[in-house]
């Protein structure tokens, strides 16, 4: 019986011990376990948050931005202890709803919460960007950053450890770029890869006129209605077919057709915003556009981007590329008119004699008719 009671006592002791261990582990996770030699209780800073100032920036914003970026946070080797509670793949979301936003840059920051340190010392983590929700227009920044933490004891008024720990982010952050060891804040940046298009006009041929204004229709597919696009390059006032036209330096998608007016040697850009110190492009990549010459009956033949077939209303369909200088984004329209220069047209005197003959004949005929009437 005594043996039985001893066995039960030992079993109860094991259960009790296990319960204590579980409670201790729970306390370690929730309340941060003791780490100091003095038996102090470690804890998070008073806010309960360790904020890592990761900044996510997009520059050259030329319109609506809807994108999110995912990161990876990895502990570096040599940390004093395992750190729990880290969100290893946090996300930053950016949403600028204004189709017509023109911003030098837009940025968000990231905070890492509930990191649990269990031991004093210096810790290091590496932060890298691993994905973008819109990698075409907002690619990831491949830079990596080391972030250093310092975990120390909280001291009481007698400078004795209270048993609690405090953590702070050190100022130094080092870029992996070229192994340079320079203080650098963790800032991930994308230059918005929106683009713009250029339409250029030229004339060729002995009978062409470099002062003649040509009218082109530019049709953009895939750009949100209401988006205001910047137009740069055409004369403010043009004379097209005898009609005085005041051109605009902007076009709202969906508000009728976009026409541009160009003379020989002129170019117009659509979607290239550059004002008040802000440079931004307004056309998303991959959308297509067409350029069509409006036929004005002046017998010019047209080629677009070197097309061999000359017509009066050639048309090009192109997908917008991320490189503003790419072939796709630059449409060259050449209007050709060949005709021999007639340097002798006005020197023949015979037509005047013919007209004189008919004039005199008319005089004689009418005179006779007049005589008959009088008779």
């Amino acid at each position, binding site marked *: 019986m005594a043996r039985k009671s001893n066995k039960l006592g030992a079993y109860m002791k094991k259960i009790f011990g296990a319960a204590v261990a579980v409670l201790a582990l729970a306390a370690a996770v929730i309340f941060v376990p003791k780490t100091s030699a003095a038996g102090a209780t470690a804890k998070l800073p008073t806010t309960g948050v360790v904020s890592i100032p990761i900044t996510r920036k997009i520059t050259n914003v030329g319109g609506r931005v809807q994108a999110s970026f995912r990161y990876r946070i990895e502990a570096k080797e040599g940390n004093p202890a395992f750190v729990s509670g880290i969100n290893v793949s946090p996300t930053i979301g950016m949403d600028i709803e204004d189709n017509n936003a023109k911003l030098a840059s837009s940025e968000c920051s990231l905070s890492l919460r509930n990191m649990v340190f269990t031991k004093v010392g210096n810790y290091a983590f590496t932060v890298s960007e691993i994905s973008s929700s819109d990698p075409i227009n907002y690619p990831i920044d491949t830079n990596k950053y080391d972030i250093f933490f310092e975990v120390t004891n909280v001291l009481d008024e007698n400078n004795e450890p209270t048993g609690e720990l405090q953590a702070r982010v050190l100022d130094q952050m080092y870029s992996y770029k070229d192994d340079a060891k320079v203080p650098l804040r963790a800032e991930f940046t994308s230059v918005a890869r929106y683009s713009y298009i250029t339409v250029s006009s030229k004339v060729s041929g002995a009978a062409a006129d*470099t002062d003649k204004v040509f009218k082109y229709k530019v049709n953009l597919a895939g750009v949100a209605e209401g988006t205001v696009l910047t137009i740069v390059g055409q004369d403010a006032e043009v004379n097209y077919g005898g009609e005085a036209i005041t051109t605009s330096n902007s076009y709202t998608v969906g508000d009728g057709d976009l026409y541009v007016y160009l003379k020989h040697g002129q170019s117009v850009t659509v979607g290239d915003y550059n004002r008040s110190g802000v440079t931004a492009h307004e056309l998303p990549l991959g959308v297509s556009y067409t350029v069509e010459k409006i036929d004005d009956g002046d017998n010019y033949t047209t080629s677009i981007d070197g097309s061999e077939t000359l017509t009066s209303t050639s048309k090009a369909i192109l997908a917008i590329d991320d490189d503003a200088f790419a072939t796709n984004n630059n449409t060259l329209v050449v209007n050709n008119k060949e005709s021999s220069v007639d*340097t002798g047209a006005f*020197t023949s005197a015979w037509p005047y004699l013919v007209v004189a003959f008919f004039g005199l004949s008319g*005089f004689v005929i009418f005179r006779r008719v007049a005589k008959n009437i009088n008779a």
Partner: protein
Amino acid sequence: MRKALRLLLGVLMVAGVALAASSVYLYFAVENGIFERDADELLMLRDNNEKGVRYWYDNQVAWIRIYDTNIDYPVMQASNNEWYLTHDYRDNDSITGALFLDYRNASDFSDNTSLIYGHRTNGNLMLSDVAKYHDDEYFWQHMYGELVLKNRSYQLKAVRFEKISADSPLYRNLLYKTDETFLLLSTCDREIRSERDVLFLSVSQ
């Protein structure tokens, strides 16, 4: 009714006489080449040109002179090859127009081949004398000239005279030879409208 008809016939007779008279006038005007309405001013300009005093019109790019010929004119350049067919060097309407450089040519005559057009008239105006180069003796006696720009002048030497088609690639490409600089004077052939009389001049400093 009869009165109205008489009035109408009277008007038509006057119109017929006026038309006949003006046409006869134009016939003799063109035949004699008197449409250089500012002949006196042109003579004065030529005279000043001799003295080195040159007035430049708005679209004037040069003055060309072939010695001992009637080719002694300002050279204009417009945005096309039509304007100076019917406008003189002051941009006034003119049947004989003005000599003009092809709109595609550099106005400083730096192209390998520069092309100057001018009317062939019934008299000796504009580039009418170019046709005379068909005669060898005339050619050898009138080979030299000068092209005066605002800031420099070139010596001209006739090297060739040729009748070419108005559709010749020369007019499309504006290129005669790539290794030398040439100035071409082009005017119409009097008999065959589809041909052009062209005088090729070498250009040197």
